[in-house]
């Protein structure tokens, strides 16, 4: 039986992630935890999060989860969601500049917002098309350019463009998902993206971490 740990460090609505995983999980055991031991024993790890990166990083350090996440991101199928994707980067512009976990080289930057007659609203909130850049186990059965639900004001700029698994247009074309080895991460919220999102989560649970 697959065990799945959803890392709970007090940031945002972890419940919606665990509920969606339970819905698609069959007999997989889904646990919501901040206990390093339990997380390190799970077969699959999900790192969700919403809110501000500085709070996220300080909570991870306080709960001694930063090294746990680094370890999991090296060794098993790992899914970062939203802030849990941004936190994987080296650095974010958020809160006047905040270091991330440094797992994926690159940084997190704010949307330009823009000007003119109809400046783009920030946060980027709602359903937008996700363009898959290459085949991946997590895209299995999900049509190209499907809609997923986003809520964010910052986006990632990985140094290595090859890790970009999908792009979305919002004033700029940004990385909506990334993949590297056993790591997959999404800026959108699969747990709130109806059929397409549930399929992605089901694919993650079935994934062995190989590309």
């Amino acid at each position: 039986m697959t065990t799945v740990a959803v890392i709970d460090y007090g940031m945002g609505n972890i419940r919606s992630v665990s509920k969606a995983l339970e819905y698609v999980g069959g007999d997989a055991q889904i646990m919501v935890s901040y206990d390093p031991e339990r997380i390190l024993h799970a077969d699959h790890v999900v790192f969700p999060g919403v809110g501000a990166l500085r709070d996220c990083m300080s909570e991870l350090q306080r709960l001694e989860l930063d090294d746990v996440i680094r370890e999991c991101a090296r060794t098993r199928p790992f899914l970062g969601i939203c802030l849990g994707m941004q936190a994987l980067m080296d650095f974010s512009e958020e809160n006047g500049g905040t270091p991330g976990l440094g797992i994926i080289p690159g940084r997190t930057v704010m949307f330009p917002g823009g000007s003119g007659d109809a400046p783009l609203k920030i946060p980027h909130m709602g359903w937008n098309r996700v363009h898959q850049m290459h085949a991946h186990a997590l895209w299995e059965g999900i049509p190209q350019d499907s809609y997923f639900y986003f809520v964010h004001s910052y986006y990632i700029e990985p140094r290595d463009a090859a890790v970009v698994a999908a792009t979305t247009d919002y004033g700029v074309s940004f990385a909506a998902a990334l993949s590297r080895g056993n790591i997959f991460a999404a800026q959108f919220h699969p747990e709130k993206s109806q059929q397409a999102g549930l399929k992605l989560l089901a694919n993650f649970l079935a994934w062995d971490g190989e590309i």
Partner: protein
Amino acid sequence: MTHLAKRIIPCLDVDKGRVVKGVRFENITDAGDPVEIARVYDEQGADELVFLDITASAEERATMVHVVEQVAAQVFIPLTVGGGIREVTDIRRMLNAGADKVAINTAAITNPDFVRVAAERFGSQCIVVAIDAKRVSGLEDAPAWEIFTHGGRKATGIDAVDWARRMAELGAGEILLTSMDRDGTRDGYDLELTAAISAAVGVPVIASGGVGELRHLADGILKGKADAVLAASIFHYGQHTVRDAKRYLAGCGIPVRI
């Protein structure tokens, strides 16, 4: 360039855990069951759902937590809960139950700093400020709207446009704007109000109040510049499905998720 879809959001009024304002679907066995109704809207392609808790007594309001828990276990689109959100603990309770956003209305007026505290603690993405506005200008004057509370009965003296701007500055991630003049009339949104608020803030605006036909939804987006449109009765009474509404909007050249 963006394909960001304009959102269609059915709104359900919930009293003591039951949906009120008589939902009339043919394929539904219990018209008062929030879970069953939420599932129908989800199947029809609703982009989000708003639950407005109108339960009068604070003790009975705890039932809303169970409603949110049950809906969130079966419906995987964003859920917003409004009504009775007054403290940080109210927000945490709803988010833990599976809500994605909360709508703050009266509490923002009595204590604007609550919005700042809430946004800092939970992130702007889950803090919606609900604004109930009424037109207070004469026919000859430049248009002006004021914030009202208590279902539109109590004036606050606060200018609606200034208020929306201030709420966005304090950290509101979205504005849910209801015209109290239009609410329940089926005459369409107050488009001037919607356009004024949408131009004043850099966060998304949800238009609400007055939808009686599909054209009103398109007007809210094209003329009111709303990012999302909320409606209740046209969907509840089976007059139109959310899918009908999306096809109509797509026909008007509006990007929607179909």
